[in-house]
């Protein structure tokens, strides 16, 4: 837990005074819920039946043999409902908001995974949901927009600033400032002003608690835990039960992007580019220019493409408990292919960064020890990102034929049998 909202020097409630009361109210409600057996019981039941917990701890036998070092295990968070760990937090906060008597949920989303999880949780709990999403992200993440709308959420395209995740956060904060009487702002990562970092960690710590139980049952000697770190909610939840212990090694994989240069990555901890800063209501490590303007970041994985990091992770990195490594786009793609081909498991691009760390360190660790990778999400969602990389020609043809089909209103059964020009001729006859 934080001390008055601080983890060492990081954290805090650096918000305009208007947001102070809703944050204080939320803190009180969260503390109360943590002491409330009926809240915790309801949460456990929903985790089991709605999310599908516990998620498996999977022994990657083939990968272990090929790498020839430590035993590789994968915590299968990607099997959670809606395809990623995001639902753990979304459901927990939505349930809390409902107990607080809130009648409306707002959330920000970048790639759409958190928005999707929030939309599903709100549908389940009967809460109206509005998701703020940068216009650029709305354009490039249409499948998730469609799914959110399917769950009944309203997706609001944010046209201000750089029209991406950080602008969606600003817009959600603005909405919250005007409507906190009836509205809960459901933040998607373990960051933002207190009490969000503590609260999100709590709801995500179900991952780490399960790993602890599952590895004890199997008598695993864990050498290292590997997780990807954007804002860091999967990592902090996965690491939570182990933070105060000396072992195992805790390794966070940051987005190394296309290289170490400025604006080429989202490396906050392992490089020297980031600074201590105050942005989005909390103090942490941020990618900022010399004036303090938030810098552009870059990563193949939308979920890691963020200039800040949760304050607790920043503190644990500073004091050495967590090691951070930068994993490039290409290294993540290699890891993605490795686990898909050898284990039949498709990682999300984000989680593939954690997989890449395991590939790097497996050989250094003896065979009687285990490395556990948190597969925070599964990769189905990335088909629009991975396909242009792995099979650009076929993908282009597919998109073209889908477009033709849409324009012509052709049934799927006839769409691919004929090239466009021939179909046009037939229709004209």
């Amino acid at each position: 837990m934080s001390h008055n909202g601080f983890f060492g020097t990081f954290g805090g409630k650096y918000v305009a005074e208007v947001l102070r009361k809703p944050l204080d109210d939320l803190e009180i409600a969260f503390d109360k819920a943590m002491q409330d057996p009926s809240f915790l019981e309801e949460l456990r039941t929903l985790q089991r039946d709605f999310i599908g917990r516990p998620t498996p701890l999977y022994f990657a036998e083939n990968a272990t043999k090929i790498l020839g070092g430590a035993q590789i295990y994968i915590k299968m968070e990607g099997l959670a409902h809606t395809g990623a760990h995001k639902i753990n937090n979304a459901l927990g906060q939505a349930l809390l908001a409902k107990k607080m008597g809130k009648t409306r949920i707002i959330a920000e989303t970048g790639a759409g995974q958190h928005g999707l999880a929030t939309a599903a949780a709100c549908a389940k709990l009967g809460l109206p949901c509005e998701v703020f999403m940068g216009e650029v992200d709305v354009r490039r993440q249409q499948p998730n927009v469609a799914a959110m709308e399917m769950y009944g959420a309203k997706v609001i395209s944010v046209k201000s600033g750089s029209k991406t995740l950080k602008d969606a956060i600003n817009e959600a904060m603005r909405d919250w400032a005007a409507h906190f009487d009836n509205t809960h702002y459901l933040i998607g990562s373990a960051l933002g002003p207190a009490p969000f970092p503590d609260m999100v960690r709590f709801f995500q710590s179900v991952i780490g608690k399960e790993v602890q139980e599952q590895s004890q049952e199997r008598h695993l000697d864990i050498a290292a835990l590997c997780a990807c770190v954007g804002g860091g909610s999967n990592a902090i939840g996965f690491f939570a039960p182990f933070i105060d212990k000396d072992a195992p090694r805790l390794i966070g994989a940051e987005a190394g992007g296309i290289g170490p240069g400025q604006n080429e990555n989202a490396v906050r901890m392992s490089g020297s580019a980031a600074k201590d800063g105050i942005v989005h209501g909390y103090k942490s490590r941020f990618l900022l220019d010399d004036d303090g303007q938030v810098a552009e970041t870059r990563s193949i994985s939308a979920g890691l493409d963020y200039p800040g990091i949760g304050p607790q992770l920043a503190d644990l990195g500073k004091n050495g408990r967590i090691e951070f490594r930068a994993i490039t786009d290409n290294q993540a793609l290699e890891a993605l292919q490795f686990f898909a081909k050898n284990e039949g498991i498709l990682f999300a691009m984000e989680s593939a960064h954690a997989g890449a760390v395991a590939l790097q360190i497996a050989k250094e660790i003896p065979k009687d020890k285990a490395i556990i990778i948190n597969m925070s999400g599964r990769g189905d969602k990335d088909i629009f990102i991975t396909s242009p990389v792995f099979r650009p020609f076929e993908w282009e043809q597919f998109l073209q034929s889908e477009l033709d089909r849409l324009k012509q209103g052709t049934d799927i059964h006839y769409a691919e049998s004929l090239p466009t020009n021939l179909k046009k001729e037939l229709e004209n006859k």
Partner: protein
Amino acid sequence: MTSQNQIRLMSHLVAGYPNLDVSLEVADALVRGGSTFLEIQLAFSDPSADGPAIQNACAHALSNGFSTQKGLAFIGEVHQRHPEIPLFLMTYASLAYTPGIENFIKEAKKVGVTGVIIPDLPFDQDEGLTAACKKYGMENIPVAAPSMTPERLNKMIDAKFTYIYAALRAGITGSETTIDSQTLQFLDAFSKGSSKILGGFGIRSGSQAKQLANHVYAVVAGSVFVHEITTHYNPQNENESKMKIASAVETKAKEITSL
């Protein structure tokens, strides 16, 4: 409150919006329009306490190559032209914290800043802002909101700031503010303290200003001027739009300041 038969106004502008040249004209027009104080905002990439109008103005300034150094030079220029007008620098924590709070305040003092408004540095967790201001003879102007608990409001009053910026609406700048009895109650709660109240957020008209005038030391207006600039700015015709903007801004300021 009023002086010399007009309502005191703290008018707001974004340095470098739509560009440094035009914003200098805006500053002049605001002074001609009767402003008592100027609040000059240094654009930040993530201005979460501002409404869309000011956020877009900030984004525009940044895309034109705005920097803190240029912003401070701009303030220096305004100060030379209007040495009698107290200048309040408004920005976000990141721009003050990154170069070091004390360093930032020192630089601001050099160009003639009277006080700073940094909404995301809470008055009781200000990273040394108030102390640095004291050291260099400047004011830290905290922002109060109607949602504050009485305890917190009293804590702010007891801290005896020279000025307090009272943000009237529960939300953010730029939307309609209704001046109801609750708003006035909130403002009047400060009367037991010694701080001068700068009250605003969403002030768009002279009639709103008149309603407020007796409850505040000065009325604050910001996004209404940004709106005038956005409406009249035509990058194809810089000189003509400069004149139009200056005239529109001056007229609006006069409307707000006149009794």
